[in-house]
């Protein structure tokens, strides 16, 4: 049984999604129960997978039992296991929140949610570049439909941009894949790494072009500027649970860059890495700068959250290309914090919008909000700004301590200041500049409990900080030794 564990994060959402599709009579209770059971089932599975990955280094799962460079493999290493765990932990509260009403504004939410999980988990697990493309398409197709979940011209407009951009991105992805295959004769990531180390690349210039194209695509998915302007529009327009779930999607792009970087750059092509580093650093710094300006300019709480997400992507990119092992561990810790924290802010924005009615989550005076919401906002805001004692502070301090880069320091601190100003302005507008209630009917704050669950998860980052840090350190340590990864997939450099 435990041999087949790595494929379960794919099979569970796949079958749950299909079963929900088969339930054609729109019985909401059945759909919710199936979806919830599948989402919760991912928790123990990913936890066990992390247990395996932390002990026995790598686990290779050969689909159809075809040996590595010929068949497609799933590879469970620590990075993949950690990302799976983050996704599963994020998915449960978001799904619970969605079940408090947001799932009813369109059809097929439950099935699409499972297919999104399938795509995300698959992208984390796969060890084959073309398979990565396929899983990207799976998650993108579900995300297109989820983004359009519910109605409204804003959603149609944002959805149109999002879909066109990503379809163009897919075309570029395929061009890059074709070039990788033409230059190395393989699409298995470990085999590409091996071919690089052995100097078997036929045309290095072609390979450099291929890697650059792939980086462009991953930067588009991760929403690194200048390819990230779609993100605030799309995430701001999406319904709250969808936007919260999308918080992991930009991390998928980041994960792909990370994987490529550790496998291809560090060992195989230091010259290419040296050429690309200044570009990615500059783009990351620009994302941080524009993100902090965007946070200040945001007129809605949900778009404020999207700009925060963009800022964190920029930060993590700089850490990725400039950092050493300790910085990567700090960056991964920050990744945990920013994924869950921003998702919590998206959910909170949704709650506030529902409570305020026509004013929605626009940052202008409106109806008074209950104290419970205000306190939650305070906690989430303190966390995201990075004030002590919450997780954002820990993540930022760790990154500052491990990455002595002046521009990075300035922009990270300036970004913190900007988000402090923006979030305190947003909070004082939303909670203090209130008008007497005009609407008699009482709107419910349903979903607050699932939001609090997500906040509690973020709190574990503080309470069990040393445990989480030990985990991210293990991940970073393994990432810097791609030889083990190659050896695990292709034992003793088996001849192709």
């Amino acid at each position, binding site marked *: 049984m435990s041999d087949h564990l790595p494929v379960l994060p794919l099979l569970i959402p796949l079958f749950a999604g299909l079963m929900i599709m088969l339930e054609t009579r729109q019985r909401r209770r059945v759909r919710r129960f199936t979806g919830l059971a599948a989402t919760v089932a991912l928790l123990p599975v990913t936890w066990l997978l992390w247990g395996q990955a932390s002990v026995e280094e790598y686990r290779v799962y050969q689909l159809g039992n075809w040996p590595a460079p010929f068949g497609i493999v799933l590879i469970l290493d620590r990075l993949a296991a950690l990302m799976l765990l983050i996704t599963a932990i994020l998915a449960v509260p978001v799904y619970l929140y969605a079940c408090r009403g947001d799932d009813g504004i369109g059809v097929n939410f439950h099935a699409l949610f499972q297919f999104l999980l399938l795509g995300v988990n698959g992208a984390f697990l796969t060890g084959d570049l*073309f398979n990565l493309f*396929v899983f990207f*398409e799976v998650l993108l*197709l579900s995300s*297109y*439909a989820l983004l*359009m979940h519910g*109605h*409204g*011209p804003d*959603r*149609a*407009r944002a*959805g*149109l*941009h999002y*879909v*066109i951009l990503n*379809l*163009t991105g*897919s*075309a570029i992805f*395929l*061009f890059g*894949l*074709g*070039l990788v*295959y*033409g230059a190395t004769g393989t*699409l298995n990531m470990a085999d590409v790494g091996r071919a690089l180390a052995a100097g078997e690349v036929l045309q290095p210039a072609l390979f450099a072009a291929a890697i650059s194209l792939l980086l462009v695509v991953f930067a588009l998915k991760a929403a690194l500027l200048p390819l990230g302007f779609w993100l605030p529009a799309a995430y701001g327009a999406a319904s709250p649970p969808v936007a919260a779930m999308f918080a992991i999607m930009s991390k998928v792009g980041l994960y792909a860059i990370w994987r490529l970087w550790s496998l291809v750059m560090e060992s195989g092509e230091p010259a290419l890495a040296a050429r690309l580093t200044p570009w990615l650093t500059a783009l990351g710094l620009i994302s941080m700068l524009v993100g902090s300006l965007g946070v200040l300019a945001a007129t809605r709480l949900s778009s404020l959250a999207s700009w925060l997400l963009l800022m964190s992507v920029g930060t993590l990119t700089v850490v990725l290309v400039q950092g050493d092992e300790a910085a990567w561990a700090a960056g991964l810790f920050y990744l945990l914090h920013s994924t869950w924290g921003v998702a919590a802010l998206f959910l909170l924005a949704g709650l506030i919008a529902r409570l305020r009615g026509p004013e929605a989550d626009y940052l202008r005076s409106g109806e008074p909000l209950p104290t419970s919401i205000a306190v939650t906002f305070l906690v989430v805001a303190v966390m995201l700004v990075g004030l002590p004692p919450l997780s954002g502070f820990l993540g930022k301090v760790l990154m500052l301590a491990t990455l002595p880069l002046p521009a990075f320091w300035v922009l990270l601190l300036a970004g913190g200041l900007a988000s402090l100003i923006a979030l305190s302005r947003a909070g004082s507008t939303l909670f203090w500049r209130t008008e007497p209630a005009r609407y008699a009917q009482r709107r419910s704050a349903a979903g607050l409990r699932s939001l609090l669950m997500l906040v509690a998860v973020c709190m574990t980052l503080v309470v069990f900080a040393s445990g989480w840090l030990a985990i991210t350190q293990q991940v970073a340590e393994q990432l810097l030794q791609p030889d083990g990864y190659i050896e695990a997939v292709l034992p003793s450099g088996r001849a192709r």
Partner: protein
Amino acid sequence: MELLMALMIGVLTGCGVYLVLRQRTFPVVLGLTLLGYAVNLFLFSMGRLTLDAPAVIGAGEHYADPLPQALVLTAIVIGFATIAFMLVLALRALGDLGNDHVDGRSVGSDGEQEDQQR
């Protein structure tokens, strides 16, 4: 044949990129389709171009690389699905926004953009 393939891929990509940058949704969909064709040809040619060779090992003296053909097959299926989705989305945007501009703004007859009349 190499020259012909290269030219075709180049022309298709060029037309695709031009059409994707247009302001109405239908040319954009056409552009994405053309880009998809270009990509498929490109993937195919990355297995090297061979004449009169089956994609089966051992069936003859020469064989063509079967992997890119499998990749192209997958890419065709995925491309077809996404283009179909894109068309439906364009129709829905036409319904929701009242026009077929990619930004949802109405376009005057002389190509000048006006803000959407609500």
